């Protein structure tokens, strides 16, 4: 009888983490930034039909980086969770915090128990009636959950994007135009090339809307915004 090879838990986790990080690093970046009326999402995404940013609930939006099939199933689970909770209790009882916890639990369990970890990073945002009620969460492949302020980036070159945002950032909350310009510049710095509006996916959580706050911004509208 042959004994199976012994692999230390440290080694195992390290290998898994490396695998997941490598998968995520291949992907493009996504930024979310607070602006005066809510949260702006900008994703480097040339596809106009396979979205990386999506509505979860009235004032909650989701964005996933990494392997499409994996973050897509997380997105669907999030929508089901939110709609069920809103149906059972009340629409105001659906919170990004509980969703972020759900994602963290799921990703954590998959990371430690499955052979192949999920190669994804999740970004969740929720807006409230006042600017100080905005919540931004970043959830990593191993279930690590970080509550961010002002802006957050996920995906391939997230670190570069964040440092670019930090250096050019101003003290006060920007308006929509400034926020969009800011995000595009950061993405350009990260990728090292010019970013066309047609290769961007832009969406908003807009406090001024009634009912569902999520809205997609097309390339044309983004163009007029910037001009």
């Amino acid at each position, binding site marked *: 009888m042959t004994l199976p090879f012994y692999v230390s838990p440290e080694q195992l986790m390290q290998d898994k983490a490396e695998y997941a990080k490598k998968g995520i690093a291949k992907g493009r970046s996504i930024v979310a930034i607070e602006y005066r009326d809510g949260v702006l999402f900008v994703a480097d995404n040339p596809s106009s*039909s396979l*979205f990386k940013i*999506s*509505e*979860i609930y009235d004032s909650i939006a989701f964005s996933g980086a990494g392997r499409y099939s994996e973050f897509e*199933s*997380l997105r*669907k*689970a999030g*929508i*089901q*969770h939110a*709609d*069920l909770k*809103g*149906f*059972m209790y009340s629409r105001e009882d659906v919170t990004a915090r509980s969703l972020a*916890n*759900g*994602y963290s*639990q*799921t990703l954590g*369990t*998959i990371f430690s128990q499955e052979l192949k970890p999920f190669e994804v990073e999740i970004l969740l945002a929720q807006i409230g009636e006042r600017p100080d009620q905005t919540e931004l969460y970043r959830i990593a492949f191993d279930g690590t959950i970080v509550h961010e302020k002002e802006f957050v980036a996920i995906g391939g070159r997230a670190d570069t994007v964040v440092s670019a945002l930090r250096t050019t950032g101003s003290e006060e909350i920007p308006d929509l135009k400034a926020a969009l310009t800011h995000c595009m510049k950061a993405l350009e710095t990260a990728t090292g090339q010019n970013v066309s509006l047609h290769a961007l996916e832009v969406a908003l959580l807009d406090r001024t809307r009634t009912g*569902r706050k999520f809205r997609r911004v097309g390339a044309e509208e983004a163009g007029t915004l910037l001009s």
Partner: protein
Amino acid sequence: MDPIFSKMPVSQCSSFFDFIHHTRPELTPAARWGSEGNVSASVDEIQRHVLSQLAHGTTVLAVKYDKGVVIVGDRRAIEGYQVASRRMEKVFKTDSHSAIAIAGAAGPCMEMAKLFGIELEHYEKLDGVSLSCEGKANRLGQMVKANLPMVIQGLVVIPLFVGFDVKQQEGRIFKYDVTGGKYEETEYHAVGSGGKDARVTIKERFRKNLSQPEVITLALQALLSAAEEDLGTGGPDLFRGIYPTMKIVDAQGVRDVEESDVASQCDRLARSRTEQES
């Protein structure tokens, strides 16, 4: 751990109704009332008993005009010969381009309207596009059909669905029977205990391509006649300032007709009625 997130990977189905049916069957309307209960023995008795206890009675109606549809509902709910509620809302916006009005037992009606709204939103979020107008109408038919076990127990839910078909650029009206049968109406329809009275009034005055103010007046006239003839239908309550609820569904979406507009129209109709009598 969260029960939903533990069910990874999630099903590919875009229906919220099916989702709760599989994961939380106790939340679906039919499950709660038991689909295989022994009811055949005394259906009549149960019906009589249940119906006398439950809030029901209604007139809701929809009329097409040149740019869309108007949908109106009265505000009264009755329990036997008592008024159960004077302020019930029976017309609901279900998504950006559709609305629903429901007649029947109040509790299950409200539940179906709520569930249908979530159903449409759920599909839109999962698939990234809205259902077609026809698709929404069919889905509602399936939900009414799923309600059949409750109908046998006397808890009837009859919806009236209106939507603006973005592809065909016109307003559409769908009516249903208790088995989920879906029938499209080309001009107008009214359901509920006062539905027939309302339909007769509309039939006499309807013509194609009415303007929006004309259709609002016609819809209110029909509702007023129904309220005069039917105990289960409430007319405008001038003492308390309670008026029928009215929504317009057209290319711009769904919006309420302002209560003040409905009130002034009702006053005008009441005055012309007084003049007729004197």
